[in-house]
């Protein structure tokens, strides 16, 4: 048996983990499971596709950073797309979730997000059809790294990026005022107001960050697989599983949960074939809810 599945699983897991970080943040601060998070991932990928296309159209084709499949347009375009995806999340909040928060029907927000998710996805299908799109068609040569494992340069770059993002998130939450405010609102919104925190501003920051992180996982997914309107929604169950596994509100938990889900999926593919891959996340989710609902690193139950 080759250990390749482990590398593949860790890579998929890093990607799931990044998505789950955004999900766990919005969940713990806004207090509802947001079904549109998967679609933010898809939108992020398409927005990046658009910004990269616009940049190369404007300045002309750019050289790749060898040995990677991408050049500086993806980096600049990616940053732009992150901002745009954050903005999209912010817009959706202003149009839908904010008024629902006001009327106070908490659980109604979940079904509203389910409807919004469908609309966002169908919108992508309308704009881009369900034909897959690609950042680059360059073929990547996988490099052997020992133990029979091969990794493409892009995959290695993405793993590095995931690590950087998580460390940045950790520092944000523990060292900056906005990060501490986010934790404060997630624990006790009323007390947060008492200590002078503008909860509305924290909510805006949360959507911006959540959207930007979703965009990063969308770009990672698009670089290594392909870009489809369904891609984020198909990732939603693994995202939920990772967030629950790690414990709602925990950034490191979400990443570790993501890695567990990714490796478990890859292992299952190795053992029973790829058909039942998407059921693995469900099994992990149920198992965790039965055994330890607050997750591995969670401080409280939801």
């Amino acid at each position, binding site marked *: 048996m080759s250990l390749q599945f482990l590398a593949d699983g860790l890579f998929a897991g890093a990607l799931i983990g990044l998505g789950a970080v955004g999900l766990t943040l919005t969940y713990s601060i806004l207090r509802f499971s947001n079904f549109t998070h998967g679609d933010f991932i898809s939108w992020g990928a398409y927005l990046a596709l658009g910004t990269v296309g616009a940049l190369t159209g404007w300045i002309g084709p750019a050289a790749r950073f060898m040995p990677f499949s991408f050049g500086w347009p993806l980096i600049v375009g990616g940053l732009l797309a992150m901002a745009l995806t954050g903005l999209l999340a912010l817009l959706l909040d202003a149009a839908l979730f904010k008024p629902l928060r006001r009327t106070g029907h908490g659980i109604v927000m979940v079904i509203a997000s389910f409807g919004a998710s469908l609309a966002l996805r169908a919108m992508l299908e309308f704009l881009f059809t369900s034909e897959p799109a690609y950042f680059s068609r360059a073929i990547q040569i996988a490099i052997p790294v020992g133990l029979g494992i091969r990794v493409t340069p892009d995959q290695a770059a993405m793993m590095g990026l995931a690590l950087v993002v998580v460390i940045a998130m950790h520092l944000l939450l523990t060292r900056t*005022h906005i990060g*501490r*405010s986010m*934790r*404060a609102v997630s*624990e*006790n919104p*009323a*007390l*947060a*107001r*008492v*200590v*002078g*925190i*503008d*909860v509305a501003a924290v909510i805006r920051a949360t959507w911006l960050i959540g959207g930007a992180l979703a965009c990063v996982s969308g770009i990672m997914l698009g670089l290594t697989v392909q870009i489809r309107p369904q891609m984020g929604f198909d990732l939603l169950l693994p995202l939920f599983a990772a967030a629950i596994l790690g414990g709602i509100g925990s950034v490191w938990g979400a990443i570790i949960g993501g890695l567990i889900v990714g490796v478990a999926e890859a292992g299952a593919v190795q053992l029973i074939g790829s058909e039942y891959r998407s059921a693995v996340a469900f099994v992990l989710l149920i198992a965790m809810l039965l055994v330890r609902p607050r997750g591995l690193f969670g*401080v409280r139950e939801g």
Partner: protein
Amino acid sequence: MTGVPALVAHGIEAGYEPGLPIVKGASVTVGRGEIVVLLGPNGAGKSTLMKAIAGLVPIARGTVTLAGAEITQTAAHRMVRLGLAFVPQTENVFTTMSVEENLVLAGHVAPASVRAARLAAMLELFPDLARQRGLAAGRLSGGQRQMLAVARALMIEPHVLMLDEPSAGLSPKLVRDVFAKLVEIRASGVTILMVEQNARAALAIADRAYILADGRNRHEGSAAALAADPDIAEHYLGLGGADASVVGRSAP
């Protein structure tokens, strides 16, 4: 009481659901540098009145003024910047954050140049907290938690400090400690409005007191006078006549 009072709540009507007032026209005035205590039976609406003043519960009628400026509909997080600090009755610290993080978070409204000095001053004022500064607040004892909540409120160097039952759940020794701290804090120029069930100790340090029942003012007067009134002592303070006279003598 001279000049403009530090805090005036006039004819406040407030509650959690529209059309269902819990506070039904209560009024409280706190003069500059005073300690005023709010007494009353459980469920009288004392906490609701405090939360309404602090901007956490919507006010349907009435006005709140802070040093003469109206703040009735000001958002809670802005009140802090105006110098009004509030320590709620329950859940008054962030349990998942360390002691120091609780203080730093609250101190953020202050100019960056003075934050570090204030943190140091608080840790000096509350040596217990200094020893536990890295500990998650959820792991503090009840008394230490109360200290942290007070310290957190003081981080903004408030003009007016509102406390909802600061002595709840504390041992008699700690009650004395907390109240001694409050006297110290008042001496530094802070005006204090507090709710207390520990009527004897509260009246001992207070200048004036209000008794609230069913959301309305029932009695008010100097702390000494209220404590000395046997009728009030029996009905609202749970103090026997003898106790009342003790309090009456010891009140400032």
